[in-house]
């Protein structure tokens, strides 16, 4: 029984390590902040979750703590990436676009806001 748990734990650790590595590679290769966030968020969510769960399987006394941490990561990771993306746009770091300006439909919000401020 203990051997099976150990094997599951080691496999989870391996999967998590691979995904975390790919996430790091993605942050290195992507052209702008938004694409880097895409790579970073997804890979760290699944990678971090499976590393923590793997540790929980290797050390059965820690499994409850591991579950709490997994839930915390699942909630906090997307929120932080959303906050980073929004703050980045507010600082006028516009996304890298391959297909031209019409691919950025978020710009209209800020154009409208600026017009309102000018009218005041």
């Amino acid at each position, binding site marked *: 029984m203990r051997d099976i748990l150990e094997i599951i734990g080691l496999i989870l650790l391996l999967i998590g390590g691979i995904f975390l590595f790919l996430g790091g590679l993605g942050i290195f290769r992507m052209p702008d902040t938004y694409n880097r966030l895409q790579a970073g968020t*997804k890979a760290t969510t699944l990678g971090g979750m499976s590393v923590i769960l793997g540790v929980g399987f290797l050390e059965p006394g820690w499994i409850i703590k591991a579950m*709490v941490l997994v839930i915390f990561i699942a909630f906090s990771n997307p929120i932080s990436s959303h906050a980073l993306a*929004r703050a980045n746009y507010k600082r006028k770091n516009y996304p890298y676009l391959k297909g031209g300006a019409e691919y*950025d439909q978020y710009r209209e919000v800020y154009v409208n806001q600026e017009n309102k401020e000018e009218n005041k």
Partner: protein
Amino acid sequence: MESLTFSQKLTQFFLSWLVLFIAWLGFTSTLAIQEVITGLLVSLLIALFTSRFFVCCDVSIFAPAKLFYVFYYLFVFLIELIKSNLDVARRVISPTLPINPGIVKFKTNLTSEYGRMVLANSITLTPGTLSVDIIDDTFYIHWIDVKTLDPVETHREIAEKFEKILLKIF
């Protein structure tokens, strides 16, 4: 936030105390009496200061009829999470970096704030999408590989799978 009545505030306070205490029990994973008492006091102290930021007065999601959909949602979500990781891995490894990024928008049918939050977080963790902003009922999504710019098509492509389950829960 100002419009809450006293009883609502009290429910909010006790719920956040309970959640914090459960988290404490999970982390210490022991029922020794001194640990439990310390946990009660510490979580009471934190709840006193932070309960006004706590938005979980909607306990109706624990109704048995909805619980099935909650688990079904978690299942769908987990599959999408694994798919999105494989998708990112494929894009990162391929030498040509096949991306066509852009920010698209769509309107959601969800009315509850809580449901919208869950939908936005789920979108962030699904293949190739990252939610940037929500203004009223319009979601602005950064899409790593834009397939369509039409809001209705985008809605079907990105959100519909989650939204039809979430509409049953919230």
